[in-house]
């Protein structure tokens, strides 16, 4: 089957978007609750932890350059186990795609437009996602190239304009509780910026060419996302302190509220929120795209675009069912999302990697 190919710069920007997408504005809060003032060390540690994980993703893709992740699973695990593993992966993508509009509408209805029904916001989000998937992966990749520049804007705003308010006392004392909380924080962060890159596996081996270049793009994208996350987390702790960061739901948004330079540069927080909405749209889109293409390959359809609109309708309805309220969401994210994404983002690729190695050894030994 002929597949559209995307360039390496597009792969890089898609990876970066997929990695920090949903988390950049909220993650500092969960991190600060665990690692206190040492969150920035955890963020750096996550970059180190993420490298081998991204390497495994790249290796799996490089072995089967013409297949998507669902097909790779079927190939390595065999037909039946592969089908079950792929179905569970598709289920992850589709439920996560339902979750993204919830986050956005929750943010909008609590911070900006409290009287708007959340379904109105979800409807706009899902409509945009469906239209984007109907246009195809090339358009999505082009859009991500544009969005990645917005994020630079977010980084500049949150670093330069708030820097007069920095209090270095907020980072002290360093290593107060030892290394254990830092490792815990790094694990939590990697569940939000490293393991979700698994959704990229529906795009990366099948829709790219030049494999050695693709490796560079994947790593560059991941590092860029990690760097942005590091900056926002560091700045939140430096300015708000770990206590306020941990207790607020949207610390980066709160951070942008602190900007006041003269009388001109005030009330810039919605620019930050806007960039977050855009990147959030991208991660929702990636999840939905991976879910739709994965589902159509799972049941053997020729064209995934046929089922996108009904799938979008289901996503829209489920977006308000999936989390009844904020408390449910907070508990679910803490106790369920972490092991859930770890199974699919770390253990599943690791198993694939090992089974693939053993299979290749056995084949070699036979001849």
């Amino acid at each position, binding site marked *: 089957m002929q597949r559209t190919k995307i360039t390496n710069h597009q792969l890089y920007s898609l990876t970066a978007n997929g990695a920090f997408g949903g988390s950049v504005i909220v993650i500092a809060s*969960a991190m600060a*609750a*665990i690692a206190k003032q040492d969150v920035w060390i955890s963020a750096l540690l996550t970059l180190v932890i993420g490298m081998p994980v991204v390497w495994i993703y790249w290796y799996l893709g490089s072995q089967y350059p013409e297949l998507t992740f669902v097909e790779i699973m079927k190939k390595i695990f065999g037909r039946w186990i592969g089908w079950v593993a792929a179905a569970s992966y598709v*289920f992850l993508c589709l*439920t996560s795609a*339902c979750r993204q509009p919830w986050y956005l509408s929750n943010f909008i209805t609590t911070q900006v437009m409290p009287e708007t029904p959340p379904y109105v916001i979800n409807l706009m989000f899902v409509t945009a996602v469906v239209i984007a998937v109907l246009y195809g992966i090339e358009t999505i990749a082009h859009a991500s190239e544009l969005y990645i520049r917005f994020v630079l804007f977010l980084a500049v705003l949150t670093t330069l304009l708030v820097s007069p308010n920095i209090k270095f006392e907020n980072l002290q004392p360093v290593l107060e509780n030892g290394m254990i909380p830092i490792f*815990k924080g790094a*694990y*939590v962060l990697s569940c939000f910026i490293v393991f979700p890159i698994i959704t990229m596996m529906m795009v990366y081996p099948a829709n790219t060419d030049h494999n050695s270049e693709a490796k560079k793009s994947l790593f560059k994208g991941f590092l860029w996302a990690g760097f942005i996350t590091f900056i926002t987390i560091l700045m939140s702790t430096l300015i708000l302190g770990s206590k306020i960061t941990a207790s607020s739901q949207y610390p980066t948004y709160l951070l942008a509220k602190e900007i006041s330079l003269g009388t001109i540069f005030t009330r810039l927080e919605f620019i930050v929120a806007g960039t977050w909405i855009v990147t959030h749209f991208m991660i929702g889109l990636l999840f939905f795209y991976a879910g739709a293409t994965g589902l*159509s390959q799972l*049941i*053997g*359809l*020729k*064209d995934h675009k*046929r*089922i996108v*609109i*009904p*799938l979008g*309708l*289901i996503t*829209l*309805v*489920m977006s*308000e*069912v*999936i*989390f*009844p309220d904020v408390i*449910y969401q907070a508990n*679910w994210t*803490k*106790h*369920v999302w*972490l*092991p*859930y994404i770890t199974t699919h983002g770390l253990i599943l690729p690791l198993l694939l990697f090992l089974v693939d190695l053993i299979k290749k050894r056995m084949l070699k030994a036979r001849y």
Partner: protein
Amino acid sequence: MAIVSILAVLVFSTVLGITEIPKMLKQRLYRELWTFSILLAAGTILTVLKSLDVEIPNPSDFIAWVYSPLAETMKNITK
């Protein structure tokens, strides 16, 4: 409000069915046709149920049930 959203989704799915199904029949994509119909019917039924405030089974609960043996470990990690 319930009436509006039920009518809207019924109109939407009828229009979508009328425009999409003949295309697929013409191209003999029967597998696509089946998946499309099942998904569209599921989406319509879910919307109607949600508009009538019927409790819809939550997939998050199912995932939480699958990972419930790990809940204690996770509580320790995220403390």
